């Protein structure tokens, strides 16, 4: 008897007890559906993070100023030195791999356009900022070295600010007031999206570093050459880790830190850190998927249970099949095929359910979801394997029945 014939017999047997078949396979349905949902949501999140890594700017190092703290205490005197223009020049000139470098000195401020008012992040930058961040303007021009030198009152605005203050009108050439200082908008930045922290990067205004220092970033104790954080773009041909070490060594020399002293700055490879976080995230999502695979085991036990019931109910049929020439392996195959069919049925329903729910999550939560065919194939295979593993014992019991006893059973 061919597998195909066994399959038809199995379908017939399942149809006669349709309700029972569906209830039995519910464990498989839930298992497969949750595996698909979790993996798809996890994959989607990973893609999203990849997108954010790309939005950071590839091969970029960020240098943060500030005292490093140990157990909440400042780790020593003179560790609170901000980064300065001198630091910028030193890094640019002494570290071989740095192809562009820019500071970003930020503060929060209200930006006013006529009666419209929007509180956003205002950052002073250097001319190479757009290049370092891989963040070109969509319209208008970037800030240039002349703007920086002359402390020009010019600004670039992000997409969110443009939307909030100009609501569809072209902002180019318009004048806005930031802390009562008038600025001319010379460019609108292209869309950047969310940062890894979930902050809207398009909610920003960029102005020349010099202007920011003099007029906008009004922190007490702002030194006249401080530059906030430094963003350094590393040549694609250079080793980013080596560049990181060189930057650290240059800054240590400038600050005359002792070999064992705590640094008063930190150099970070944000993309690297984010990638590490993504790995944790995707590991977590696979771990969750594995947990939900446990429900496949529970479902498998349900299958085994119902197959044992089925073997008992159909003992006479098994006897008859043996009497007319069914061999033990024919009986074994028949019941195995039936168990596998049951599980595949559950797998199909579960896959459909999983895809629908994943799509619903994507729609409702605006959360990226991607269902890959790999996951579907994987979960169907797992369902079939469940059928074979948990169907084997009942099928074997059927195959080993004594034909006489089986025929005589009621």
């Amino acid at each position, binding site marked *: *008897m061919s597998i195909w014939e066994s399959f038809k017999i199995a379908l*017939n047997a399942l149809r006669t007890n349709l309700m029972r078949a569906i209830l039995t396979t519910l464990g498989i349905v839930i298992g497969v559906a949750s595996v698909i949902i979790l993996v798809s949501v996890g994959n989607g999140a990973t893609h999203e993070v990849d997108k954010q890594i790309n939005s950071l700017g590839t091969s970029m190092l960020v240098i943060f100023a500030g005292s490093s703290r140990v157990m909440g205490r400042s780790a020593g005197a003179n560790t609170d030195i901000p980064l300065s223009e001198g630091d910028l020049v030193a890094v640019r000139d002494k570290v071989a791999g740095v192809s562009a470098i820019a500071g970003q000195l930020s503060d929060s401020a209200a930006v006013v356009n006529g009666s419209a008012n929007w509180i956003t992040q205002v950052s002073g930058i250097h001319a190479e900022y757009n290049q370092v961040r891989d963040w070109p303007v969509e319209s208008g021009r970037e800030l240039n070295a002349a703007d920086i030198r002359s402390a020009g009152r010019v600004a670039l605005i992000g997409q969110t600010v443009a939307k909030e203050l100009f609501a569809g009108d072209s902002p180019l050439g318009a004048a806005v007031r930031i802390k009562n200082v008038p600025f001319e908008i010379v460019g609108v930045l292209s869309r950047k999206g969310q940062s890894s922290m979930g902050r809207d990067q398009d909610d920003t205004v960029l102005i020349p570093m010099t202007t920011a220092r003099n007029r906008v970033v009004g922190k007490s104790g702002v030194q006249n050459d401080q530059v906030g954080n430094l963003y350094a773009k590393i040549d694609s041909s250079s080793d980013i880790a080596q560049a990181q070490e060189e930057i650290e060594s240059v800054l240590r020399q400038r600050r005359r830190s002792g070999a064992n002293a705590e640094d008063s700055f930190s150099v970070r490879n944000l993309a690297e850190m984010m990638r590490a976080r993504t790995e944790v995230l995707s590991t977590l999502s696979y771990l969750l998927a594995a947990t939900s695979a446990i429900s496949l085991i529970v479902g498998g036990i349900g299958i085994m249970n119902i197959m044992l019931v089925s073997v008992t109910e159909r003992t006479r049929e098994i006897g008859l099949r*043996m*009497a*007319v*020439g069914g*061999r033990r*392996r024919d009986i074994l195959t028949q019941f195995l095929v039936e168990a596998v069919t049951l599980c595949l049925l559950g797998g199909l329903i579960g896959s459909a359910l999983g895809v629908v729910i994943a799509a619903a999550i994507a729609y409702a939560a605006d959360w990226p979801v991607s269902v890959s065919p790999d996951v579907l194939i994987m979960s169907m295979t797992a369902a079939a394997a469940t059928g074979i593993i948990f169907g084997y014992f009942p099928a074997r019991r059927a195959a080993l029945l004594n034909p*006489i006893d089986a*025929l005589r059973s009621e």
Partner: protein
Amino acid sequence: MTRSLSQEANTGATAPLLRAVNLTKTYAMGEETVRALDGVSLTITSGEYVAIMGPSGSGKSTMMNLIGALDVPTSGELFIDNRNIATLDSDELADLRNRQIGFVFQQFNLLARTSALQQVMLPLSYAAVPPADAEKVARARLEQLGLGDRLQHHPRQLSGGQQQRVAIARALANNPKILLADEPTGALDSKTSVEIMRLFTDLNRQGITVILVTHEAEIAAWARRRIVFRDGRVIEDAVQSPVWDAGAAVAGALP
């Protein structure tokens, strides 16, 4: 063929289809050992029409299980079509049942929610006959038994007599040498019983060996040879004149 028992009716030219030599079968029933068969020797040749009789516990059912290759003897030899079933493994026994023996049961033993055609195709598919050919053969068998218009009917949609005829068509599917019927009319009314017995008689005339296992004398009366069991032994083995051959008066009395 050194020993040839009870071959009165046949010439030596016919080879024995079934030969039992000193067969015993014992069962363990708790502490006790039950001797269901106690040294049975008999020979059935091809084309015979045999009734095996005896009260319950006489050993006739055990004998039927052995003849049907459903079981193997504790000792002694049983040759079916020249093969000693004691030496066969489970697959070979299944194959023997599939090709040489057609079973007919008291309760028909048809599969629920399965069409007559599918029922008859079952032994063919176990014989690895391709489905298209199997369907052709099954259709022919059912038509031969007057069920040509019932091919797609399920057991529930058929009368008892029709169900038993489907079962007989199934038994004949692989063209077996032996038709082994266990109380084939036990679940039928007397009129239908006669129809079924006529069918067996016709089939025997066409050459198939028919073995009826029954405790009813009326049914046994249809056979040409009667073997009676008691306490695990053959106590009577005689050729008889069957009812349908007993003269015009009796024949005329039959419907």
